[in-house]
């Protein structure tokens, strides 16, 4: 009989949890006491997908005929600063990409310097976390090549992408877009800093003059208007410490799905 009672108690407890989850979703969906369940999901996804991708496979590439018209821009469509405006009207002649942080040889490259480097062109599918997807052609410099040229220091673990666009206007500048990857994705051959789209210069709405393409992750990881790539050993000194603009606002840092 003892077992039956404990089983009944278990069933009752289970139904209570189920009922409270379902009826009180609004209150409970972001309850700190349930956060561990969501963290478990994030941990499982990262671990499982890293295992699945251990051979560093490439994402499927499409033909030119499959490029979709009117690729929708997302996030900022034109950075709202004087600095950006002046750079834009001079056709980004004054733009410089800085690669610094935990590297032996920091780099500072103009757009022409970048275009003079060996380029990579890929026609890939862009997946927004909202559910839509589009196919575009991207031309740029593999990030791994730049990082190898700059020579990473032994403790380097992440690359942080600093952007020119302020997605939310704030007094303290915490609304500037930024993103980060670890070296597993940063060194992938299809991870590029793109200056060209669909055979032309990258449009302003898509992040001119330079944006990140990280094809095995969801849209918000693909930082636009990238001006600085900082190599670091930890992410906690940027923004709210979660590794990106959207990550600081409750989105997953690893967004492989």
């Amino acid at each position: 009989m003892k077992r039956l009672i404990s089983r009944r108690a278990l069933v009752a407890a289970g139904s209570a949890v189920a009922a409270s989850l379902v009826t009180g979703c609004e209150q409970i969906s972001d309850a700190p006491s349930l956060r561990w369940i969501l963290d478990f999901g994030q941990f499982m996804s990262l671990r499982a997908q890293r295992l699945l991708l251990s051979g560093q496979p490439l994402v499927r590439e499409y033909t030119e005929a499959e490029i979709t018209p009117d690729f929708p821009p997302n996030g900022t469509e034109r950075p709202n600063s004087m600095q950006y405006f002046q750079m834009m009207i001079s056709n980004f002649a004054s733009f410089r990409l800085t690669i610094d942080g935990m590297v032996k040889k920091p780099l500072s490259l103009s757009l022409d310097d970048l275009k003079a480097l060996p380029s990579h062109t890929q026609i890939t599918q862009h997946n927004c976390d909202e559910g839509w997807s589009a196919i575009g052609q991207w031309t740029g410099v593999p990030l791994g090549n730049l990082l190898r040229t700059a020579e990473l220091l032994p403790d380097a673990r992440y690359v942080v992408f600093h952007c020119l666009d302020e997605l939310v206007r704030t007094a303290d500048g915490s609304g500037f877009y930024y993103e980060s990857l670890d070296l597993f994705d940063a060194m992938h051959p299809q991870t590029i800093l793109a200056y060209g789209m669909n055979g032309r210069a990258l449009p302003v709405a898509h992040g001119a003059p330079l944006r990140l393409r990280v094809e095995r992750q969801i849209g918000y990881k693909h930082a636009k208007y990238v001006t600085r790539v900082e190599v670091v050993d930890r992410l906690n000194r940027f923004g709210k410490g979660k590794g990106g603009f959207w990550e600081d606002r409750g989105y997953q840092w690893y967004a492989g799905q």
Partner: protein
Amino acid sequence: MAVAEQNPDADASRTVPQAPAARKPASTREVMYRHSVAVRVTHWLNLLFLILLLMSGLRIFNYHPALYWGNYGYRGVPSVFSIRAVEDAESGDPIGMTTLAGHIFITTGVLGVSFDDDGMPVAGAFPNWLTLPGGPGLGLARDWHFAMAWLFVLNGAVYLLFGLLSGHFRHDLVPAASELRPRHVLKDIWNHIRLHRPRGEAARRYNVLQKIAYMIVVFVLLPVMVLSGLTMSPAVTAALPFLFDLFGGRQSARTIHFIAANLIVLFVVVHVVMVLVAGVLNTMRSMITGRYAIRPEVGQ
């Protein structure tokens, strides 16, 4: 008509066979041990995970409430299904508009536009009370969806392993050849139409329509759900690009994911109706304690 033996034990309703194998001939008010612990536990966990998957999935859907066919789809591309909030040209009132294959349905109050507790219209494909979280929060919805997907898959793996190793699938789910004869199937369909409660020997096992329905859900719908969900992951398809070909592109996979989710909801509705028909107390008890009362054959 077959006449079953009368059970000489007057108080048989309190007796429980020691093992599932200890079967008596159809007898009055016999209680059998119908569902194993593994089936009962995975069943209720599955229900919890599926509810949370559905609710968080609907919240994700609300962020782009349109479905497409093929490789791509976004605002401006013709969709096969969409839910929108539009403004009435005359009154300016919000109208919920659902479009399916070119046919427009006004769905104000349910889809596209719903009303909050104060009767104020709220734009959004699925109403807030049906989604997780019950308002804006795509990051949170995705967190819940993927966490529940993992728990669902782990729970499903336990169920599949148990079903295969214990013989549950072989004994209880796979229909016998005799059950698949057209005559038997037709008779079972007729039993369902007239909401007939099974009695005696027939109540000891799942009927053939039930077996087929469970097998479709377990071996077709739920795997399609998982695989079409994985097809939306750019990381998973980097390693398993054939998933695109299996579903006909990422947006087709998303559409199939949505259709399969609807079919699972439809299954649950029918399942609950059947529980009511078969007797809610008896079936609920059997899914909680495992014990199921067999109603005697008619004519006793």
